[in-house]
């Protein structure tokens, strides 16, 4: 058994075995999506207005939610990271992470729907005449409710991921940029961003992949048209007609491939010599 004497092989073994499960699922989904009819189902969904608008709506909604979460999370970490080293402010920031997404989505409905607390409070204060004057922020065609729920829920995750990086930045670098004649923008672009970049890219991938394909929030707080890809896939899977089931698989396989390509591109970008040099030397 010469193969097993190789230590690297052994070290990869647990991760490899674990990855068999999702890999098996993916292969199985590919087989189901083909359904013995070649790429017919793929052709069908790629010509389907419903699928294409759902895909665009999902990418747009997940993209906005992810970028807004990252920008706000980054801003919050930048301004408050000295405070966040203390336990109680940190726990307060992380509270939203303790709740399931479903609960958080329900809370957003309670607070921001047309008959919600905010609308009621505005009417009581005399700022609104009728609940129908309140903007539609939940179950709306723009996906605003979905975006609000995700942004609220993911900002703490962004903070959690960025906080250790901020703590590791050598503060003398800021003084250095100042003494060379740089301003706040130079400090951010030459000290913060290069240090944060790998984590920002990873955070984007984690949050974007999750929000693109997660089901409960859009099912709870989204509309039926346009609908997020997960909601469409669920409908095709459990819909009245069994014939749509391969379409659900085809949609999910395409979503997985899209995320895979995005991830590979990001890691390719991060493996440029510039960013490799950044990782090998952190004084």
């Amino acid at each position: 058994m010469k193969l097993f004497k190789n230590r690297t092989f052994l070290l990869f073994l647990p991760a490899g075995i674990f990855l068999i499960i999702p890999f098996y699922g993916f292969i199985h989904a590919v087989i189901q999506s083909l359904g013995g009819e070649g790429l017919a189902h793929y052709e069908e969904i790629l010509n389907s207005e419903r699928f294409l608008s759902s895909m665009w709506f999902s990418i747009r909604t997940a993209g906005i939610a992810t970028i807004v979460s990252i920008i706000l999370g980054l801003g919050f970490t930048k301004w408050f990271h000295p405070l966040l080293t203390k336990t109680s402010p940190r726990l307060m920031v992380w509270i939203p992470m303790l709740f399931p997404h479903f609960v958080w989505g329900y809370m957003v409905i309670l607070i921001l729907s047309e008959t919600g607390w905010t609308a009621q409070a505005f009417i009581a204060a005399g700022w609104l005449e009728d609940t129908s004057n309140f903007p539609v922020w939940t179950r709306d065609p723009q996906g605003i409710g979905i975006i609000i729920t995700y942004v609220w829920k993911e900002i703490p995750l962004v903070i959690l991921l960025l906080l250790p990086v901020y703590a590791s930045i050598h503060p003398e670098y800021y003084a250095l940029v100042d003494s060379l004649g740089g301003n706040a923008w130079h400090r951010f672009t030459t000290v913060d961003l290069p240090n944060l970049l790998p984590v920002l890219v990873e955070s984007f991938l984690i949050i974007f992949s999750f929000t693109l394909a997660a089901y409960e929030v859009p099912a709870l707080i989204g509309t039926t048209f346009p609908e997020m890809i997960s909601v469409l896939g669920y409908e095709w899977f459990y819909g009245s007609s069994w014939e749509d089931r391969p379409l659900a698989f085809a949609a999910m396989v395409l979503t997985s491939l899209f995320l895979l390509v995005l991830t590979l591109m990001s890691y390719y970008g991060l493996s440029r010599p510039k960013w490799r040099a950044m990782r090998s030397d952190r004084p």
Partner: protein
Amino acid sequence: MTQTKLEMKNITKTFNHDKILNELTFHLEKGEIMSIVGPSGSGKTTLLRILAGLEKPTDGEIIMNGRDITKQKANRRSISLVFQQPLLFPHMTVKENIVYGAKVSKNYKEEKIESLLEAIGMARFRDHYPSEISGGQQQRTALARAMATEPEVILFDEPFSSLDPSLRQDLRYWVRDFLASRETTAVFVTHDMEEAMIMGDQIAVFEDGNFQQIGTAETLHKSPANMRVATFLGGHLILNDHEFAPLHAVRVGTQKTSKNEVSFHATVEHITYQHGRPVAHLYVNNLEKKISIPIDETFPTREVQVTIPAGSIQTFSGEIL
């Protein structure tokens, strides 16, 4: 004609009621290099950071080319600081780091970058990342980056302390010549007296928030202002608060010699060798002082006599400047 480039007037800095800097005053002529030497933790770095604009003085003023710059922000001052660590941007190559200094201060010229790369001997390594070059090369690049901003004054905060001794020695002379050839006005902070003597035209001994004495190496050695300066120089036997004897006048022997001498009993703690000569490390019992003196011969016993000709005993000058 010399002109005053940089002036500090009555600079005071207090941290939590502790006076770190106590009414410091000095001035630098154009092209002059001043070494500030003092023990670790004495506030030398704070002094430099105030000059660079990275910290605000509690009181006093800084004047550059006749203009008060005390309230000017760090990025508006034509003063660059070379830090203890090279602090090169790890994701930028040697050349990009230097270009960054030039661009951020809006002083970018391609020829200047090339001449700086040549001057620091890094032209061959221009495309290397900081992690691929040695500590000395990194510090040279950091210096070139600071010079690329074309500062009127450049400050050094113990820039060689993280390098190994042989490299440190080479770099001291190199930086000294580099600054002299460009007639750059500079302040060089160190805790090492030898480094201070190599780098500076003038040496300011800084301790307890004050300059104890400012002068050339020769002045400092010949007439130290007070006990603190003499202690820091290590070239004198301090007899009391007012009197000292230069170590070259001190003789070590096994017996008392003539009458016209002052003599103390001492214990040899150790013999080491420096510059090819044996050096005796003695503890002078009555004075409770340790001294190190080159000797010609070793002694049969550890108990010796330290004698000083009465004429060699001097009093501290008490003059700061």
